[in-house]
């Protein structure tokens, strides 16, 4: 795992050298900013609940757009061959790229700190749910990044990678809203599979080990699936 940092740095630099990072971040800020503040004054409540309710849906489109290039681009260019003939392990490559995706998500979330700060100036903001919300957002971002990375590792076409990634993230977000379609016996299992269900818990300010375990296990499954699909390419 010693070769992980140069890969992380290179991928992160790539985001900020190209217009990619700026386009994605500004799109994200415009969308969240509009949906959040357009109704904020109608509710007349000093909290960020609306922002965090929207986040999973917005993330399921934005994060696959960030992670779609991580492997697809390398397959398409052929540089993947160069990378793998350097003395690096699959774990280095996967973790380096995954960390770059998470770091990019963090960089995208960073400007939104302006929302709670400006709200706390005009009203009495409870910081507990806000901090919980941001921890949850990072966990959710990490999970979706891992899913997006997997989608990127199965195809050399970035658009297909985006669609696969967005479809999986979207399903994870919405599955607990479709419970009435399922027989009662499996409802609690299906509900447990939903990313939004766990994210809602954390963003209320309740940090429960079950929710954290959920995010880490989905991350692990997606990263392991990435590893398997890379092995198949050999």
């Amino acid at each position, binding site marked *: 795992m*010693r*070769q992980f940092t140069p890969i992380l740095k290179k991928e992160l630099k790539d985001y900020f050298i190209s217009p990619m990072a700026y386009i994605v971040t500004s799109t994200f800020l415009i969308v969240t900013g509009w949906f959040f503040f357009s109704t904020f004054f109608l509710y007349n409540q000093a909290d960020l609940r609306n922002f965090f309710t929207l986040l999973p849906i917005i993330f399921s489109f934005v994060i696959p757009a960030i992670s779609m290039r991580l492997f697809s681009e390398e397959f398409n*260019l*052929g540089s993947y061959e160069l990378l793998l003939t350097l003395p690096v392990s699959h774990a280095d490559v996967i973790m380096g790229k995954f960390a770059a995706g998470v770091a990019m998500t963090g960089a995208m979330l960073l400007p939104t700190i302006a929302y709670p700060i400006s709200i706390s100036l005009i009203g009495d903001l409870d910081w507990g749910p806000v901090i919980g919300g941001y921890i949850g957002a990072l966990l959710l971002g990490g999970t979706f990044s891992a899913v997006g990375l997997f989608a990127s590792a199965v195809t050399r076409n970035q658009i297909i990678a985006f669609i696969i990634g967005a479809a999986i993230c979207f399903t994870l977000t919405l599955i607990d809203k479709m419970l009435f379609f399922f027989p009662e016996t499996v409802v609690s299992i299906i509900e447990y599979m939903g990313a939004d269900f766990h994210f809602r818990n954390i963003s209320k300010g309740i940090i429960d080990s079950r929710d954290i375990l959920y995010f880490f296990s989905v991350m692990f499954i997606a990263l392991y699936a990435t590893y398997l699909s890379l092995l198949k390419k050999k």
Partner: protein
Amino acid sequence: MIHVENLTRYYDGFCAVDGISLEIHRGEVLGLLGPNGAGKTTTLKMLTGYLRPSSGSIHVKELDITQNPIEIKRMIGYLPESSPFYKNMLVYDYLDYVAKIRQIPPNDRYPRIKHLADLCGLKEVMHKTIGELSKGLNQRVGLAHAMMNDPEILVLDEPTQGLDPNQIVEIRNIIKKIGQEKTIIFSTHILSEAEATCNRIVIIHRGRIVADGDTEALKQSAGKEAVVFISLLNVGIEEVEQALSRIEGIEKIEKIDSTDNSLLSVTVHCKSSADLREAIYRKIKATDWVLMEFRQETKTLETIFRDLTRRINKED
């Protein structure tokens, strides 16, 4: 140094490499020759640990490639076929990135990159993005990439492909220079190139080794029959056949198509390696033909290569 045994690779049922065994020694410059699709690139990709062999084994200095891939990759510098680099990176940034991955200590990185830039002639383009570079410069970046940690083994896949004649000579000189102390394996389908740079040649065809040996030994071993090339003015093929077929030791006379109609070019194939030039010359001198060209054809790698690959095609 490198021990390859029974190396086989299938792509979805298609057998690209079929039971190759090779022993490569330290300090050898080995040319891997073969027509397109012979399995050269696949073999090299397996040697560098990018592809996994379907069966067979590769050992580098007692290390097995499936068990110690990272240690082996540390010893090998690889230039892939089309030098696919990150197009949006600067040349310097890219080499720096490779230096970091190759774990070159921070203090040595800059001198090392500078040295490679001098060696590969990259000085003027260090600040350019790789995407802007011409094919030849791209290839040089690849060479610098491959030599970053001064590896003991260099694997180059068609290093001179797409270069202009001057650049080809330059790259060959670099290969020769490095080849004095390093083990180099490179693939090519240009025979003169292999002849000029290698001290050992392996010819593969349809995934199998059809010839393996010293460049000189290989040239001598292939075919003993001498061939004489004659070009004559204003004379028909029948007359020539009639006149020359009386010489003892001639097997057949073949006409060669030429663009110039007044010129008749023929090759005379002899039964043995005996030099029949004198006898042929005397025959021609006795006639009133005008002799435009007269030479003994030497066996080049080209002819060896053609003979070998054709023979196999016929056998199938």
